């Protein structure tokens, strides 16, 4: 089966698409570059939209079903748009014992944010991760890519509030 031609795909000159294309070129447009391509697509677009999956399938000459299969198999890839800021709470054993569940509870109570959801204004996404390996610093969370150590629920709430208020103006 040949993949469908890309429909409604981003214009080829889109800068974000160029990043994805550069990754595929580096691997010679071989099919084994799929995960790498999806990584850079997610980095460029923030999430994997259907059009991007189609474009990747066409470029690497693999069935769309396989691309979709890989994109949905791995936790790291998301098919839904993410908020502008992300808060990844570690729920590994050490963090759990030190109160990662309290952090999740407080986020749910205060902002109605569960794991895998984005706030209605599209500003903050909350995710959970398996052990991020910073057990000495438990409970830990990755706030916008930076590991924050020894967190209390209040600190996380303050950070989320800061993100939300910043983005209003």
């Amino acid at each position, binding site marked *: 089966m040949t993949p469908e031609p890309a429909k409604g795909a981003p214009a080829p000159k889109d800068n974000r698409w160029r990043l994805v294309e550069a990754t595929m070129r580096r691997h010679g447009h*071989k*099919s*084994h*570059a*799929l*995960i*790498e391509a*999806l*990584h850079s697509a997610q980095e460029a677009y923030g999430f994997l939209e259907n059009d991007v999956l189609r474009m990747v399938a066409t470029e690497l000459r693999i069935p769309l079903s*396989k691309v979709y*299969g*890989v994109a949905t*198999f*791995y*936790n*790291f*890839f998301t098919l839904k748009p993410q908020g502008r800021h992300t808060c990844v709470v570690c729920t*590994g*054993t*050490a963090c759990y014992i030190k109160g990662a569940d309290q952090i999740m509870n407080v986020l749910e109570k205060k902002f109605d944010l569960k794991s895998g959801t984005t706030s209605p204004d599209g500003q903050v996404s909350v995710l959970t*991760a*398996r*052990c*991020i*390996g*910073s*057990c*000495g*610093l438990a409970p*830990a969370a990755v706030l916008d*890519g*930076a*590991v*924050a*150590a020894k967190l209390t629920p209040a600190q996380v709430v303050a950070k989320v509030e800061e993100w939300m208020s910043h983005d209003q103006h």
Partner: protein
Amino acid sequence: MISIEDLSQISQAEREARDAVGHQINVCVAASCLSLQSDKVKEELEKAVEAKGKKDCCKVRGVGCMGLCAAGPLVAVEKEKVLYQGVAPEDASAIVDALGGEPVARIQGDLEAPFFARQQKIVLENCGRIDPERIEEYIAADGYLALIDTLTAMTPIGVVQQVTRSGLRGRGGAGYPTGLKWATVNKSQGTRKFVICNGDEGDPGAFMDRAVLESDPHRILEGMALAGYAVGAQQGFVYVRAEYPLAIKRLKLAIKQAEKMGLLGANIGGTTFSFNVDIRLGAGAFVCGEETALIASVEGGRGTPRPRPPYPRSRVSGAIRRSSTTSRRSPTSRRFSATARSGSRRSARPRAAGRRSSPSRAQSPTPASSRCRWGCRCARSSSTSAAACPTARRSRPSRRAVPRAAASRNRASTCRATTSPSRSSARSWGRAE
């Protein structure tokens, strides 16, 4: 083309430069300390050194993980053997003032504490001592010497034999003899072979791969190149979790540096051996730590394990079809470069700490005497049969006896691999080679 002389020149220059500095201040810049803002501490220390006019006799540099992550950020003054823990950026000027005099007692850590005193670092010997972002420092710690030496003086079969003699085993749970695995790949038919380094760790509290990837990335590259030479592979992949951005960054940098120096790439050290290393990112699937799932993921597919045989080391399917793969846990490959450097005898030394030397695990070795002959902590006497030891009973190999090197008789960390009764088979196998 790089030779042993070039390496020793670089190492000499690096050591002289280090000796010329009076006070070397090491700041941990591995992930744990960085998340406690050790980068700011480093900045402040640099400013303080400059402000107090100690720039000539004092140097601040970032080093890898020192092990005591819970007490970070850690700062060590190298020659005076002083460790500071829980350092805040405001402490910087006090630390610089105390150089050459009495250390700042308020934040001083205890280097004589059991945590440090009972560690014997082997794989992690360079962690916390060298700057992971500079290849020269790794070379000054005798890095890449084993690679060039092996390439010029040994045959691939000779390397496999030495690894077999050393008794080195896989660092994963199964403890498969590395020499046996390499010999299988070495002998297997096929023109394209691969070395895959498994840096995908996801067990809670397990971050020994990250510690080395962030603190001593060149060690992994050297170990992989040696494995590639032994088995006849020209391409290696390091599979790293995407959740470790710092490890990926440092590994990428290390590959670039090694390629620039001719320690990776075509015709390493002027020999016919070529070896390239590529990074593959994991995408958050715990199962990808398993060998066949990992290979599926490297090939760009879903990481689903498949039944064996065929074993990956004899044949794998998909994009690396008709190729043999030796996939190894990254602790094994790090360990190997230490083995090759000191010869097989050192590796055969019985030891308690530092087998799987993750910062958390290396701290409390149980003395070998309190273990039963199956290596676990059930404290039964050495004459007890396997049936009496609950761990040995649970994990007795079902189908085939795993050859066991005499060297690892006293191994301490895992019970599973030591239950084999055929103690002499590894030795006889080594002779047959």
